[in-house]
């Protein structure tokens, strides 16, 4: 059995009185990419937000490295090594690219490790040369793809053990989507565990080691990407029966 | 359940309020009740605060000395906060609920004018602590209102004192500055009204708000008009700031007159040396030490000065004395005629030679103020203290 990075047990989450996900149980093994696919409104983003702590109203369990983080605050979860790349990027739009990146390492800031952080910034620039070119630009003026890269770069600055990606391909031109998925693969190869939520099922399945299909807030299918790709049920989930 | 707790607390508070209201103030049966309304807090606290303190001190002294013919004096003081509505309600409450024999206050001219019809209608003597001559002069009849008196000198007296001082010093081209408060506006109106009578030419008429930070602009404009003197009419910090700006702008060659509102030594101190040479008209109580030993007011003013300093550890302002005068005027009437509203009124109206803090009062049916312009002495700031001038 592979070491588990994160698992959820019967997780339910609510928006007001509306239950957005129901009894979701998933496993994310260490060092792997796990994808969660499903149509719009299936509860994929809710699942990610419940893991990262942005949604507080929930029951069930989120276990990270054998530690129950269900009711922890977001900043503590971040410090434990989970970074989220939120849906719609959520950049600090009025700040520069470099400031966005720098703030990604906020939890690690102190006087002593200034050089460490500079190293990390350089590392990130190595991964995303385009961001280095734009480092003084206000992030709100970047193109969609660049913003997505910046969002990933920001999350990566915390050197997380696990990164949660929410719809990285949304609103991005197909060519750039390819680039973004390359980055995801690179991230994973450098040792980061990835939990990916995607509507773009084919792309998501291609990079994943394992995948879950969500519909109506429940896990309706799970399996190896290859099996799911050929499963007609997947198409049904998206396009109806 | 915090909410439940809260509800309990709120209801306890409300019940508490109710109890407070219902218990009211315990009064011995034979006490003489007198009501007072001062602007203790709010925009006119410079008037009401010393008035309240003085009145409380005066009543305490009277009661310590055995009260009025054995009756303790119960002074019920309400704070009107400079608010017309609150003042009106307070006066009516004193009349109808507290059933007082006479009323003292309010501190502000506007509010005195506002409640004056209430006193007239309810036939109760009211001794105002505000300056405007309109309080004791019914414009329609040209006579005083029947039930209303006032102890402060009218603004016109202060203006007359200033103008005559100017005349003797050959000044006839002046600039005026005033705060946009009731105090400033009524002083300004009197300055404008009386100027032609005294041959004064007003070359500038500038204003500033009660919370303005700097009056350099207005003074610069005046400087450009080159008057011989400036008269400033305001209260509170602005009257100090204006003096400082006057000095900073190097306008010492333009004589600076302040209103009687400047009459606290604290102001000289706050002016940080800038007040040297500033002139102002002051009542006797502000210059008690300077008065000649045989001055009729020497004794009362010195005692007041000492008692006030001992009790509150504050310097006297111009205004506390008005409350002293009012309280003692009413107390004298009470001791003579008891708690009979009409009799009190009649007694005050014929009071002569009453020695108060701001002058020797001689009331008459035609004069419900009882003072002349002699009640003001022109004073100059010299070496950080008042000095009498001619």
């Amino acid at each position, binding site marked *: 059995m592979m070491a588990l990075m994160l698992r959820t047990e019967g997780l339910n989450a609510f928006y007001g009185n509306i239950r957005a996900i129901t009894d979701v149980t998933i496993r994310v093994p260490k060092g792997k990419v796990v994808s969660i696919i499903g149509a719009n409104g299936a509860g994929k983003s809710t699942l990610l937000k419940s893991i*990262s*702590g*942005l949604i507080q109203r929930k029951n069930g369990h989120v276990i990270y490295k054998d530690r129950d983080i269900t009711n922890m605050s*977001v*900043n503590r979860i*971040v*410090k434990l090594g989970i*970074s989220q790349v*939120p849906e719609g990027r*959520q*950049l*600090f*739009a*009025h*700040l520069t690219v470099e*400031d966005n990146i*720098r*703030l*990604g390492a*906020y*939890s690690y*800031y102190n006087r002593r490790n200034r050089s460490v952080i500079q190293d990390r910034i350089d590392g990130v620039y190595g991964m995303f040369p385009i961001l280095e070119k734009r480092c003084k630009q206000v992030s709100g003026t970047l193109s969609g793809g660049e913003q997505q890269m910046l969002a990933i770069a920001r*999350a990566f*600055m*915390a050197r997380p053990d696990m990164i949660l990606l929410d719809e990285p391909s949304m609103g991005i031109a197909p060519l750039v989507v390819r680039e973004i998925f390359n980055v995801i693969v690179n991230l994973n190869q450098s040792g980061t565990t990835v939990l990916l939520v995607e509507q773009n099922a084919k792309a998501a399945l291609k990079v994943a080691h394992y995948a879950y299909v969500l519909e109506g807030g429940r896990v309706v299918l799970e399996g190896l990407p290859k099996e799911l790709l050929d499963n007609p049920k997947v198409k049904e989930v998206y396009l109806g029966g | 359940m915090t909410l439940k707790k809260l509800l309990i607390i709120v209801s306890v508070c409300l019940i508490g309020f109710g109890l407070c209201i219902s218990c009211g103030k315990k009064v011995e049966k034979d006490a003489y009740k007198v009501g007072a309304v001062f602007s203790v*807090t709010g925009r006119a*606290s*410079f008037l009401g*605060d010393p008035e309240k303190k003085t009145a409380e001190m005066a009543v305490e002294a009277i009661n310590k000395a055995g009260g009025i013919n054995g009756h303790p004096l119960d002074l019920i003081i309400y704070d009107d906060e400079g608010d017309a509505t609150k003042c009106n309600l307070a006066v009516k409450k004193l009349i109808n609920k507290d059933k007082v024999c006479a009323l003292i206050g309010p501190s502000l001219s506007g509010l005195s004018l506002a409640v004056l019809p209430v006193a007239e209608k309810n036939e109760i003597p009211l001794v105002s602590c505000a300056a405007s001559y309109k309080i004791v002069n019914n414009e329609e009849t040209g006579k005083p209102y029947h039930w209303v008196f006032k102890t402060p000198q009218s603004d016109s007296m202060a203006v007359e004192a200033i103008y005559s001082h100017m005349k003797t010093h050959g000044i006839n081209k002046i600039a005026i500055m005033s705060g946009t408060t009731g105090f400033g506006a009524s002083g300004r109106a009197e300055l404008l009204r009386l100027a032609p009578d005294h041959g004064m030419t007003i070359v500038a008429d*500038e*204003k*500033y*708000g009660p*919370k*303005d*930070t*700097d009056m*350099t*602009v*207005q003074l*610069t*404009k005046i*400087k*450009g008009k*080159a008057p011989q003197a400036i008269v400033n009419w305001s209260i*509170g*910090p602005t009257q*100090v*700031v204006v003096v*400082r700006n006057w000095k*900073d*702008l*190097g306008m010492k*060659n*333009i004589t600076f007159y302040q209103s009687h509102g400047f009459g606290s030594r*604290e102001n000289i*101190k*706050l002016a*940080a040396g*800038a007040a040297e040479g500033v002139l102002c008209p002051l009542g006797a109580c502000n210059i008690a030490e300077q008065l000649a030993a045989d001055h009729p007011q020497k004794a009362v003013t010195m005692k007041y000065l000492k008692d006030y300093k001992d009790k509150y550890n504050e310097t006297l302002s111009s205004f506390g004395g008005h409350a002293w005068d009012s309280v003692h005027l009413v107390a004298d009437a009470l001791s003579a005629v008891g708690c009979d509203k009409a009799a009190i009124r009649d007694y005050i109206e014929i009071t002569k030679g009453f020695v108060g803090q701001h002058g020797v009062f001689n009331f008459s049916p035609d004069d419900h103020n009882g003072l002349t312009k002699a009640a003001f002495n022109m004073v100059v700031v010299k070496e950080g203290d008042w000095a009498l001038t001619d």
Partner: protein
Amino acid sequence: MEQISIAGQLFQYLITGITVGSIYAMVAIGFNIIYDVTDIINFAQGEFVMLGGLTMVLFHVSFQIPIIIAFILTVMGVTLIGILVDRLAIRPIRQPSVLTLIIATIAVSFVIRGAAMFFWGKNPFDLPAFSGRNPITFYGAVIQPQYFWVVGFLIVVVIVLSIFFDKTITGKAMKACADNADAARLVGINVNQMIMLSFALSAGVGAVAGIIITPISLMEYDRGAMLAVKGFGAVILGGLGSFPGAIIGGLILGIIESLVAGLISSGYKDAFALVVLLCVLFFKPSGILGNIEISKIKRF
């Protein structure tokens, strides 16, 4: 008799206007710091200024503490009060609508004002000018040395704040909270801490404004409200959330008031300044440097 030229007068008006405007600007900056992080307009901002002035008087004049130490102590003290305001008044509000927060900050201003009246009484207090009271004459205009301190401190505050916001990670984190609170949480920023910090900072800036203005205009317990109104005007005129806007707004208000008082009518100077403000708003609904995007979110 010494005369003053028209040019000299104009110059004097301008100088006074800049000084008074600098104070408004500083109050406006205080408004902005809190607004940026929390979307709250803190109507108790003027009370911080008042507290700054009166606390300085207490330390420097009453306790005879040397001016620099007294200055630091005062700023620290008022900063602490800013933190308390956040902790005791703002954070406990469970359903913070814009109106609730406005009322809460007004309530805070009453409490502070009431406490100040209780503690200091109603009389004004003076503070010695930092470098004496010997005015400098310059092109016919007279400049009090304290004017330089006022403008100087405005510049210092602006520089310090821009360094803080542009160069330090904490400053950037505060800006990040203002920009996108959820994202700020996701990078591990404690948003509540940043809100507290914003109250602390703006109280500190308010205190500085209070300290430097007291030698010019004295200080008493109820001056805060008027300063808050002027500062609020400045911040709206410049555009909510914009620091350069706050400074421009403050200076414009100060200069208009001064010029109108000198050239048109001293009684109507405040009204004139507000008419200008209204005209600006009618043509540019988000102030001179404001951002529509920011302003359109707020409803009552």
